[in-house]
């Protein structure tokens, strides 16, 4: 029989929860920083240049690692550092022209190597303004916003070198979920 009167102290729980928590928190911050800079990141769409594919206030997931192993494809929605101010401004656009191609905007249509590009993700009969011809070097991409009437893109600031591409947009996850799939194209 236990003489409970003898018991004058007891220990039930250990300490250092917060200390352990801080240690794991630091590790988590380091890992998240690495993930953010090298693998995936989250960004908020601000502006209407990619309407209707992406609208202001949508949270998207950006794949930063794919382009280390593969080349951007036509139709990829990408985040790019604006070549005029790469440290401060980032835009989300769609890749239209690939390295070595000739892109022409004429009479509201887009031509790739003199063939008209049909883009089924755009509203019907959309007009693409700002005529011009751009010959892309072997490191340059031509990007445009899906909202052709209201987008500052390669038509205005010229082709974008690969070094300015940050990554590929893969998902919209808030306020709704949508996967951003690279479309297939028809040339006429």
């Amino acid at each position, binding site marked *: 029989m*236990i003489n409970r009167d*003898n*018991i*004058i*102290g*007891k*220990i*039930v*729980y*250990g*300490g*250092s*929860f*917060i*200390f352990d*928590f*801080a*240690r794991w928190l*630091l590790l988590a911050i*380091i890992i998240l*920083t*690495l993930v953010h*800079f*090298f693998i995936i990141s989250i960004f908020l769409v601000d502006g209407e240049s990619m309407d209707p594919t992406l609208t202001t206030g949508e949270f998207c997931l950006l794949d930063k690692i794919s382009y*280390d192993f593969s080349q951007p494809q036509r139709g990829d929605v990408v985040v790019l550092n*604006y*070549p*005029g*101010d*790469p*440290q401060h*401004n980032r835009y989300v656009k769609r890749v239209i022209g690939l390295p070595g191609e000739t892109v022409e905007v004429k009479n509201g249509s887009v031509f790739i190597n003199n063939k008209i590009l049909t883009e089924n993700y755009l509203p019907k009969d959309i007009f693409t303004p700002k005529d011009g011809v751009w010959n892309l070097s072997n490191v340059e991409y031509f990007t445009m916003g899906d909202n052709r009437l209201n987008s*500052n893109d390669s038509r*205005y*600031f*010229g082709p974008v070198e690969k070094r300015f591409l940050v990554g590929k947009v893969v998902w919209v996850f808030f306020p709704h979920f949508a996967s951003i799939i690279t479309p297939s194209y028809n040339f006429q």
Partner: protein
Amino acid sequence: MEGKKQKKIPFLEINWRKFVFFSAFFLVALVTWQLISTSKFSADTNDENLAKTLTSSTVTLNVEGNGSVYQDGVKIKSRISPQKDFDELRLVVFDKNGYYLDDLKIDLTLPATVANQSNPQILAIHGVDSSIAEISGDSTIVYEATGVSGTATVTVIAQIPKGIIQLPILDRLIYTLSNFGGKVWFIVAIIIPALTLIYLFLLVLLHQRSQRVLAPDRAISAPPMALPPAVVGVLANQDVGSREIAATLIDLSLRKFIFIVDRDRGFAFGKRSFSGVLLEFEKFLLSKIFRNSLKISEQQINERFVDHLYSHKMSLFTRGIYALATRLGYFRENPARMHRKYQFIGVILFFFALICFFLSFKYFPTLQYVSFFWIGMMVSAIIVIIIGSKMPIRTVLGRQALSNWLAFKKYLSDPAPLPYDTKNYQKFVDYLPYAVIFRCEALWARRFAEDGFVVPDWFISDKQGIGLEDFCLSLYPIIGYVGQNLATIREPGYK
């Protein structure tokens, strides 16, 4: 006696003092980061400010041979940046200034007659009617934009052939480093800790070889000398850890200073009268657990246990053991001092690498992969702390004493069963602290038959008729748990 009351968040059992400390710590870190992120250095002319206060419709830019750029005669922060095939000027000259300009003209003078090779471009967006870049002389380029709105951004670009600009060593170094791909830095991040590990491991090995502890050729069936188990632990491991604490608690129980109660709802430590002779470090341990209270509630004890980020009493406890072992002539220098030396190096290295890790993302955007290098440095720092403290510093006397104790360990871990005997069972509990120190408590218990075991009077359980196995299964987790928890607060959490 009523202990001081501390509020707790009911679900998490979080101690408020620690919670406030770490909240404040992270707040300070966050504010510091924000300050660093947004700070503008007034001692240095900032080109962004110049761009925002541009009033003239004509801007003169001069590029010097060392890569410096002057805007209207004033040196600006922007510099020529090296690229693979050329050196590049990429400068924002008008950035949402808030007022309209009919015509914006930028005259750029290069340090050599290479204007026609410089592929000049002007990028003008967000409300510019037209823009053009033209070569106007052997070393002069004129950029012009018309109808520049207050929200516009105008950037001029020139690609200067290699060899014209003599960039400073730092710029060239950054460029060279930025050219190494992620794979290279990843390999570096693995190599650095690996080399640190190999180097320290070899160093420890070398010291161990020169200070070889003779392996005992026979087992001895009794402790070679009357030493507190914790001191034996320090002699064997050069460190005071959870096992040294656990062994001390069992030793104190054996010597009738405390008793242990095991119940379904938890366990308890009871205090008997401290009439016997206690060593200094043992007093600190008992004081940490019981303080001077005659009766303490479970809640108060629990709060006391988590009261500090680290416990000064536990620190004194470990120091006392180290000091005693050093006084006995077992070590060339106090092991605590040797630990501190490596901890100091490791902690400085770790935090230096941690700061560089975050700053490299902020201030060297082209050097992001260098962050792998800093990760490698942090891992190396941890290796220095862990392996460095294993450096053997035993004296000849210490090595001889350890050799004797290892002979006793041989006896404790001998798989041969001991004959059923009441005296042997007494031996079991008497030698248990040393078995805990030598990590062979399970082997030691296996030497004894299950039947006939009488639970020692310092272990009180509400279970009836418990055997040796039940005793071990009850005691080991309790002692291990308490020892582990006390060990984590013996120093300010460097591990």
